[in-house]
């Protein structure tokens, strides 16, 4: 019986993935602009584009079939790992994506880790010493971090640490060394919500009956805190971290752009500008898949943490 919730969650994830693929394809299909015409214009200049030529070219690319037939072709190819070829670079979309995923994934993991450590750490500290100096400073810091736009902080950091002090590279990508500064910017701007969730979670739980009972049973503060409160606060923290990670996996387009990182977001932005349809389609779809996988992992974590979630799943049945 323990496997049932897991199977359910996986089934939901697969259905969501199917829906995402259909939606991405559909939205791109109805978006303005004829790819065949755009491509020809690009290749030969606006002079040589005649209707018949466009039509023949569209046939060649398989763009004149009905929507469903085209979706089916794309879907079957996708299952074989073929997401088409970039009009621009001529590379397979999948390999373009994978070559840029490393940078974005490292950035997302690094910045989320910074948010997690800062957010949960400061949140716990500030809840334990409520209204103390640390709490006041933390609350001020979280208000600032919530209101400062990330691009502003990014430019400031770039100017101070990369240009003035020269500690980090500015434009040329040097692997992890280039990721530290953007990760700190994203980590700092992303931790505010975590601080708040953790702090208020702990404070809410402090007045719960079970905390009074635990103290009445003779447990000391540390035992009450670590043994009882922490597990109850974990659930909203997992939610926050997941949404943080998801927001960053899309490759923070703005941050990648400012730090000129070879990430997914930056590449997608360029593809959008040049209307490179297979790349847009493939990237949006693959990012959607990553979101589906991450949400499913978070759901499974809920199941592991909170017995009430497990119970809820049996009751719905």
């Amino acid at each position, binding site marked *: 019986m323990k496997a049932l919730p897991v199977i359910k969650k996986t089934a939901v994830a697969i259905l969501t993935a199917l829906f995402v693929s259909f939606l991405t394809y559909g939205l791109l299909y109805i978006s303005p602009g004829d790819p065949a015409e755009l491509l020809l214009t690009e290749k030969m200049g606006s002079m040589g584009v005649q209707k018949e030529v466009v039509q023949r070219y569209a046939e060649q690319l398989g763009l004149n079939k009905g929507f469903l037939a085209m979706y089916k072709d794309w879907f079957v190819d996708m299952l074989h790992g073929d997401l088409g070829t970039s009009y621009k670079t001529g590379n397979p979309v999948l390999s373009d994506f994978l070559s840029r995923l490393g940078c974005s994934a490292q950035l997302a993991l690094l910045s989320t880790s910074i948010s997690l450590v800062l957010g949960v750490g400061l949140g716990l500290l500030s809840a334990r010493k409520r209204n103390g100096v640390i709490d006041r400073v933390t609350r001020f810091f979280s208000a600032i971090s919530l209101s400062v736009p990330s691009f502003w902080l990014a430019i400031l950091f770039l100017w101070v640490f990369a240009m003035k002090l020269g500690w980090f590279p500015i434009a040329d990508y040097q692997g992890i060394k280039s990721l530290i500064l953007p990760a700190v910017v994203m980590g700092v701007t992303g931790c505010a919500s975590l601080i708040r969730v953790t702090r208020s979670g702990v404070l809410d739980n402090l007045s719960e009956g079970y905390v*009074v009972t635990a103290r009445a*049973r*003779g*447990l*000391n503060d540390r*035992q009450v805190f670590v*043994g009882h409160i922490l*597990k109850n606060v974990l659930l909203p923290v997992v939610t926050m971290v997941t949404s943080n990670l998801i927001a960053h996996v899309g490759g923070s387009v703005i941050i990648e752009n400012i730090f000129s990182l070879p990430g997914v977001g930056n590449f997608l932005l360029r593809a959008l500008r040049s209307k490179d349809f297979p790349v847009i389609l493939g990237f949006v779809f693959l990012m959607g898949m990553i979101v589906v996988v991450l949400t499913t992992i978070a759901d499974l974590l809920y199941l592991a*943490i909170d017995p*009430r979630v497990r119970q809820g799943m049996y009751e719905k049945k």
Partner: protein
Amino acid sequence: MEELLKLDHVSTAFQSRSGLVKAVCDVNFTVSPGQIVGLVGETGCGKSVLGQSILRLLPPSAVTSGQILFEGKDLAAMNEEEIRAVRGKRIAYINQNPTEALNPVLKIGTQLIESLRVCGGLTKKEAKEHALEILASLSFDDPADIMKKYPMELSGGMKQRALTAMAMGGKPPFLIADEPTKGLDALIRGQVIQSLMKFVELTGCSGLIITHDLKFASAMCDTLALMYAGEIVEFGPTKKLFSAPKHPYLSGLMASMPQNGMHVLKGSSCSLIDMPPGCRFADRCDHATEACRAHHPEMRSVGEDRLVRCRLYD
């Protein structure tokens, strides 16, 4: 008779935005070994605050004064470590509402074993065996299965019994049960009374039972302390109190019980922030005189073992 617990001029107040809330005012009474005292009063009269004051479980905004002597030592003067050694081991506490009193994300076994280990330096294995014994003694059919369950998988009555099991762990000589029957239906209330009686029977402890339920109090307690607006207004043996209530508040409460015709007490309790100078019950009392409203009545002795805070008995 030697006393186990002696409350000596105990008062507790909270600082709130609208003023100082005097939840408990100058409470004096003693509990002897083997005695079960019921602390009875309506919601908001300060009885739960008094219960939590004894074990110092209140938030830091609460200030308690007076002496709380337990086994000759003043709980109010103890440091954090000393009071922790009393909690659970010497005085067990069962809170209101069994549903909220258990941690929802930890198994019953985890919480029970933890309590036992805090109380008496047992190894995990010993604690587990002891836990199974206690659960069996509280008539759980399958103790091993209960240990693996989460609180939400148990019924209200079972949760109450699980809490009782936790409180029993240290074989404490004293039990404080705070509204153990609040918000429970009649069937579960019966189970709770049974499990508490079992507790008293198995541990031979004395106790303070806090409740607003007169019927429950009369079933469990040999002595009653009636509380009104933060102070004790009548104190004495349960049987005598019920057969011949002295304080007009107690007579009023008894007349409001269903079997006595449900004559509702008029008015409502005075604010714990702005207290009247005289008797706190005067506004709801049919016998109130000018003197009642002007001067605060002291406790006076009326017959053997009985105390009442009312001018009618001068």
